[in-house]
């Protein structure tokens, strides 16, 4: 055999350094184009960063505000419970949360953990401890023995079952739900159904509508006809006990004596379980409401109102407690106000006024984040869950990012099919071409991710600072959360950039050179 003229050997891949060199030359040559691609990528990453970080901040700030405000709201609720028995929904909720806290407990405890980190001012608060207190109270009012213990745990089981029913009913279509429950709540419907006649009718109706009962018909029937009346019984017993306890303490004037240990002992004897922390909260609450009452009283006087209005620069008609408290932003105005009040014979010192105003303003900020009465609910519900709205927003911004990045990179690559074809003509391995594009898109991706994240970070911090002020900076876990959001959006941007470039480049590199040339 004659030796072949042309020996086909193995072609080497272009070295990494040489690839980088070529990418640099190429990017510098089309600087404007690279810059436009870079800017598009960076914008997409910034957008992702903003929506991600915004969600995270909202979530963390709400949890933080909840741990700040919840003890106070809990104390407020406790004050109501001294004069009015819990209704059936309160009892249900307490039993449900207590039960979940004992069984699952993960989410609730996590929030408790956040509370103990951030809630320095209000004392340690966790929804779980507050609910075990409520359960202790129920036990006391049921008689405080083993039978009561059993009755409470049975009621708690039933309450959890009802929660399952509620979840089931929530999942029905709105029309079906309306047909099943009419306007009444599940609790009052349950009361009706637990009458056996009603049960038969319910079964008929459910059959008509084609509903499937949770846990099957038999267990549902058992729940409605057996368990629910038992729960009702327990509720009435708790309610009666609670009413007795209220009667026993009715002659105590809490506003004057709440700090008195004897008074606290008497209240505990009636069956109320109040921790020392809660007493502190209650005392504080009572103290400040006394101060507010005093100022309110003073402001009834028209002459004084006019003078205060003059001091604060508002019409005398507008002068009201809340407006005044909202306007006080330092010791000076507090001093002037205290003097004005003193001249009219009301002695409240400037310090107290300023402290009250600060407390009021802080509460207003926290409430603006949470909504009235929400703190306890947020504390109870596991907070680290992402709401549907957040998911939608995040998904949408991810979609925008995907489309924007793919488009930018696709443009940048299809523009260069001719170049890819030329490279193949002069002997570039597919791998070398891919190397060039991977390196180039990685460079672009890294630069764009970094600048996008920085831009997003600045914007989101500015936006949140304007919206939340000091509350933002005292929120624990903010830095780690921002870091996470930044990391994730940078990673997403980088991956998208590389994938969107590598895809079409791979397509072009695999074609025969002249085919690729024709595509361009």
């Amino acid at each position: 055999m004659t030796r072949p003229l042309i020996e086909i050997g193995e072609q080497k891949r272009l070295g990494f350094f040489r690839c980088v060199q070529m990418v640099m030359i190429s990017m510098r040559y089309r600087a404007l184009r690279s810059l436009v691609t870079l800017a598009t990528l960076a914008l997409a990453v910034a957008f992702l960063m903003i929506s991600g970080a915004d969600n995270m901040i909202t979530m963390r700030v709400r949890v933080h505000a909840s741990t700040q405000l919840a003890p106070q709201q809990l104390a407020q609720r406790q004050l109501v419970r001294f004069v009015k028995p819990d209704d059936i929904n309160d009892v249900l909720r307490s039993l449900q949360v207590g039960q979940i806290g004992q069984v699952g407990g993960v989410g609730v405890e996590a929030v408790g953990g956040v509370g103990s980190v951030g809630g320095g001012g209000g004392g340690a608060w966790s929804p779980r401890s507050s609910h075990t207190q409520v359960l202790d109270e129920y036990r006391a009012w049921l008689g405080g023995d083993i039978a009561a213990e059993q009755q409470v745990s049975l009621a708690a089981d039933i309450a959890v079952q009802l929660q399952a029913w509620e979840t089931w009913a929530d999942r029905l279509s709105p029309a079906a739900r309306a047909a099943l429950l009419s306007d009444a709540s599940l609790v009052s419907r349950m009361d009706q159904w637990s009458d056996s006649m009603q049960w038969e009718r319910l079964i008929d109706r459910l059959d008509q509508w084609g509903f499937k009962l949770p846990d099957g018909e038999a267990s549902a029937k058992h729940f409605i006809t057996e368990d629910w009346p038992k729960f009702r019984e327990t509720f009435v017993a708790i309610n009666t006990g609670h009413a007795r306890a209220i009667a026993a303490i009715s002659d105590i004037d809490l506003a004057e004596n709440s700090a008195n240990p004897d008074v606290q002992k008497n209240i505990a004897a009636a069956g109320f379980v109040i921790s020392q922390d809660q007493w502190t909260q209650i005392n504080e609450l009572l103290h400040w409401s006394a101060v507010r009452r005093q100022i309110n009283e003073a402001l009834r006087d028209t002459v004084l109102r006019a003078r205060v209005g003059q001091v604060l620069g508002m019409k005398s008609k507008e002068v009201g407690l809340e407006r005044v408290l909202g306007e006080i932003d330092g010791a000076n105005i507090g001093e002037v106000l205290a003097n004005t009040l003193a001249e009219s014979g009301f002695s409240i010192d400037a310090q107290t006024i300023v402290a009250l105003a600060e407390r009021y303003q802080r509460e207003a900020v926290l409430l603006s984040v949470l909504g009235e009465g929400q703190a306890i609910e947020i504390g109870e519900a596991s907070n680290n869950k992402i709401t549907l709205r957040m998911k939608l927003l995040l998904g949408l911004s991810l979609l925008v990012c995907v489309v924007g990045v793919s488009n930018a990179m696709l443009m940048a690559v299809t523009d260069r099919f001719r170049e890819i074809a030329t490279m193949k003509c002069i002997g570039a391995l597919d791998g070398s071409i891919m190397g060039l594009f991977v390196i180039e898109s990685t460079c672009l991706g890294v630069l764009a991710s970094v600048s996008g994240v920085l831009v997003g970070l600045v914007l989101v911090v500015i936006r949140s600072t304007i919206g939340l002020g000091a509350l933002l900076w005292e929120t624990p876990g903010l830095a780690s959360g921002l870091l996470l959001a930044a990391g994730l959006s940078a990673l997403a941007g980088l991956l998208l950039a590389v994938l969107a470039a590598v895809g079409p480049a791979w397509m072009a590199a695999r074609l025969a050179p002249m085919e690729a040339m024709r595509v361009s």
Partner: protein
Amino acid sequence: MNEPNGQKISNSASAGTSAIAKPAGSSPTPGRPVVIRTLGLNKIYGRGDAATHALAGVDLMVYRSEFISIMGPSGSGKSTLFNMIGALDQPSSGRILIDEVDVAQLSADELAFLRCRKIGYIFQQYHLIAYLTALENVTTPMAFAGLPADRARKRGMELLDLVGLADRWDHRPIEMSGGQQQRVAIARALCNNPMILLADEPTANLDFATGQSVLEILQRINQERQVTVVCSTHDHRLLSMCERVFWVRDGEIERVAHRDEMTIKLGSIDE
């Protein structure tokens, strides 16, 4: 069985199989091996009613260190044939054998090796890489071949000197005239000492004098380095340089002419 002067093979299918079976024996002139052989080459662009047959059963042979021209009117399939010979495009059917190796049998990496070191390409549109300087354009195939950068630069400068562009080494294609770009492309095509040089209308976009110098370079390479040169062209000056001319019309080889007969008939054949 074939005529020694490489006339059109009449029955491509039967001639093709026997030719592959005995590559050395089928060579009509011993000591002058066949470098490029095509068998029943077809190329169809588009499909259905829009399909055009750019090539319709082309069979040809090119011997080692030959200087060949492919001539024909535009749209005759010259460039398509050129791309096929250079393993730059895939035929719809038929085979291309380079040094009796079927190109279709080569892996992507082997094809890259072939294109990089064994074949040099000169395109009508130059196809220089826009962001690289003349020198970088010339050294890129050497980088693909794994030559160290300093040696590649040295050789690149020698080649640019050969094509008379040593003083323009750091100019980008956009800063150069068509002729200069074409000469950079020639330097690039030569950088890895190819066995075959394929030139697609190397003089089409050049003025007379520049075209002349490009042709002289091609001829010199052919004579000094024994490189097989295949030009697709309709520049008649090439006719005097090449050994054989393939006339292509409507995707088929219409005629093959030897230099001896051509020089005599030149005046009457074409004008």
